[in-house]
């Protein structure tokens, strides 16, 4: 049994659901849930449901962790030493990957990012190489190693234990070299693409930013996040934060609905590990139909509104 630290990403509503898969992957080992936002007590219930024995409120002796990713990484590195952790893991979100990379550099320990599978007992992980075209297996025998897990890579499964809340005031201080001045949210209530269970994506045929409303309406029924292809982003129909694929986000939802996408290698790089892929395209010979699960030949402007309608009817 290994001692595993799990960095927990929190949001406005406490522990983000996307962490549960990471905790599930570590469950059965001695799991330390590391809370860096100051509310370990509030996170206890969620963490213990997925097998964390210790919920650690991590702070720094001087400075506030939320002001600097550098300081947070120093505190995480101190936690690894304080609890003699063999592995530090966490959600491979943008912040998770950032913090783990900083911590790995401090500890000078190996790190595997965006893993799609992990076996902590065997010390093996799988991750994408070449944009999802190959999967690489790594063996980790280092005394301390780190890995981030791709959101949705592991299906969450509860394994309740009773956790103890402890606190760690890490003997670290901030260099002051990296300071967060503010966090800007351009659109409130936007679901993070990488953590969504269902994604509906529009391509170049969307034809305008305005038309994305169609996808948003359908997404509301699906509980989905809305994505865009590179062509749609480059044409100015959607912001880059919505782009799925090479040079955009890599997503792994349970259901991916591609509307008006040809199925380029670069797009598949970002969504290949989705569980079920559905394509809607007017061209019956579109390459995407050769590499997805279900296909509808039709105009997205006709098909998507009907899909929205059918989903609505199903609810009532």
């Amino acid at each position: 049994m290994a001692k595993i630290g799990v960095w927990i990403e929190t949001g406005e509503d406490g522990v983000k659901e996307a962490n549960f898969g990471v905790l599930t992957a570590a469950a059965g080992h001695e799991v330390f849930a590391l809370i860096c936002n100051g509310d370990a007590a509030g996170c206890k219930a969620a963490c213990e449901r997925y097998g964390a024995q210790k919920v650690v409120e991590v702070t720094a002796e001087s400075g506030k962790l939320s002001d600097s990713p550098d300081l947070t990484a120093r505190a995480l590195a101190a936690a690894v030493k304080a609890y003699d952790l063999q592995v530090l893991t966490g959600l491979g979100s943008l912040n998770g990957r950032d913090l783990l990379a900083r911590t790995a550099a401090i500890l000078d320990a190996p790190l595997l990012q965006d893993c799609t599978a992990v076996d902590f007992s065997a010390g093996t992980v799988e991750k994408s190489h070449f944009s999802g075209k190959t999967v690489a297996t790594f063996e980790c025998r280092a005394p301390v190693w780190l890995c981030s897990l791709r959101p949705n890579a592991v299906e969450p499964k509860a394994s309740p234990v009773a956790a103890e809340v402890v606190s760690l005031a890490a003997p670290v201080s901030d260099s002051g070299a990296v300071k967060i001045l503010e966090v800007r949210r351009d659109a409130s209530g936007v679901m993070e693409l990488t953590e969504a269970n269902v994604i509906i994506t529009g391509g170049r045929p969307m034809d305008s930013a305005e038309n994305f409303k169609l996808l948003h309406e359908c997404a509301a029924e699906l509980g989905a996040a809305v994505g865009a292809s590179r062509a749609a982003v480059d044409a100015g129909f959607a912001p880059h934060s919505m782009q799925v694929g090479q040079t955009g986000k890599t997503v792994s939802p349970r259901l991916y609905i591609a509307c008006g996408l040809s199925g380029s290698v670069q797009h598949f790089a970002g969504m290949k590990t989705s569980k079920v892929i559905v394509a809607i395209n007017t061209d019956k010979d579109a390459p995407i139909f050769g590499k997805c699960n279900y296909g509808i030949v039709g105009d997205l402007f006709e098909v998507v509104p009907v899909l929205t309608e059918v989903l609505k009817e199903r609810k009532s």
Partner: protein
Amino acid sequence: MQVYVCVKHVPDTAANIKVEGDTGYSEGVKFVLNPYDEYAVEEAVRVVKEKGGEVIAVCVGKPAAVATLRSALAVGVDRGILVKIDEQLPDACVVAQALAKAISQDGEADLVFAGRQSVDSEGMQTHYRLAAALDMPVVSDVVAFSLKDGGAVVERECGGGAREVIEVSLPCVIGANKGLNEPRYPKLPDVLKAKKKPVKEVDIASLAVETPETGCRLTKLAAVPDRGQATMLSGSVREMVTELVRILEEDEKVL
């Protein structure tokens, strides 16, 4: 300003990757400048255009990687350094050390740009380790960059459409993301001129890079086949959609 930009020579994202042996791949494909590095190169060139100074591209790779350095030279980089290495997928710790040594032996860096990740090994960490080796702060996933009062103010994508505004002191390492700028395309005269720009080649052995056993090893590389031909739905739009929703709900259980 002395600005360095780290670039990687990688298979084109559209290339078919053929696995060779347990952990190798066939290099008989088109190679390009790593897509994220294009944003790093562009930003480095823009900074020097505005502030004056020199942009130096540094690459750790096989001898063929000189082509990628030339493509950086064609869009405004002044000179290149190639650290030659034999491995196809070298460890990030080794690459970071080699970059750090090559840079510090060459000059005093005011700024170092790199792409946020490479599209071959997708390690997402080399620039962090480079920053640690150079004892500089680092910010990655950067989508806006400006110099201000002796430091830099950057914007970083942090998920859910949110951006952090971060102040970082100089010298620092910046991991570029798409959105940072619009990389320029090289013009033919610039491509020709780039052939005459200096590229220094050094062997990694000459840099005395420590290659400690990190305890982490690539043991297998395997192709991921595409899923096959889709099950095509038929009937009217309404019939197709109704059947699709039924399948997703009852058979696939993803709704």
